[in-house]
């Protein structure tokens, strides 16, 4: 067996994960971008994206998704989402008030590009939630790895 198969779960799980993980990721992006049109939004979509990375981690062993999205970059992306949300709120001050929906007149209701700053806020929240939850997950896995090495 190649070295790839030494960690993680069985070949069946790995194959199914390889087929589905992209679809899960796309579904998360869909939920985020359509958050102002259909049920869902930044929080749920961000968690779905974090779940796709967790799926990789569980199937292929601990270090695979950490190469794509390391613990340091989760912290950076999460902070970026928080700053983006706050900056959107502060831009509203220029037009009328904190969290003023200053882009609102653009676009018709029901279109993808509509509802002003709500889609942008959804994206900011999804970055925050997804990166934050995945960071927590990675932290717990690293802790467990040290424990199992100690035994």
């Amino acid at each position, binding site marked *: 067996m190649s070295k790839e198969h030494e960690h993680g779960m069985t070949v069946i799980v790995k194959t199914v994960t390889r087929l589905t993980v992209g679809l899960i990721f796309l579904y998360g992006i869909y*939920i985020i971008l359509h958050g*102002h049109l259909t049920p869902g939004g930044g929080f749920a979509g961000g968690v779905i994206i974090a779940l796709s990375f967790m799926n990789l981690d*569980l199937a292929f062993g601990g270090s695979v998704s950490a190469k794509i999205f390391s613990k340091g970059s989760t912290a950076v992306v999460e902070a970026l989402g928080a700053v983006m949300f706050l900056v959107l709120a502060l831009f509203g001050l220029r037009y009328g008030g904190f969290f003023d929906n200053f882009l609102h007149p653009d676009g018709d209701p029901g279109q993808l590009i*509509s509802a002003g700053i709500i889609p942008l*806020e959804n994206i900011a*929240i999804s970055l925050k939630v997804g990166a934050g939850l995945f960071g927590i*997950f990675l932290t717990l896995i690293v802790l467990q790895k040290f424990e199992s090495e100690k035994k």
Partner: protein
Amino acid sequence: MIELYVLLGLMIAGAIIAVEVKNLLSAVVAVGIVGLGLSIIFLLLKAPDVALTQIVVEIVAVILLIRATLHRDIALKSCGSRPFGALMGILFLGLAVVAAIVTFSSGLSPFGEPLMTVSRFYPMNAISGTGATNVVSSVILDYRAYDTLGEATVLFTAVIGVLTVMRSVGKKKEEDLQENNE
């Protein structure tokens, strides 16, 4: 409405099993039953936004709990009989039942009624006011964006807390490992 009661019974059973069962993995699975039932109840009550968030967060929580408990031997000690605790539990449960009977003796108002002035305003004006066809989104990200900011701050604080606490433990373990290797 009967399916709501069936699901509620399933959730209560799952919660009791999660507390009483000896195997940790079984307890985590039983907790997952509670979350799944709650998600389906949200769907039946026509709250797809909350249902989606509930099921997704429940999956994350169950995965985290399984990863945290699967290879760990946590000794489950059955602590003996605690008559005082049981007595206080029964006492407060009885008080709660009495309070509920007194409060609701005149009958509960139907679900979702009376509609308050504020909550009547949102469905009427959300689409023209914000342009978002998902009214929930327009409430949490426009009318009530302050609340979302507070929620985001709570999550941010939680993540920072977890990263800080776990990082110190991890570093210490790393040093121990290096000392052991030397």
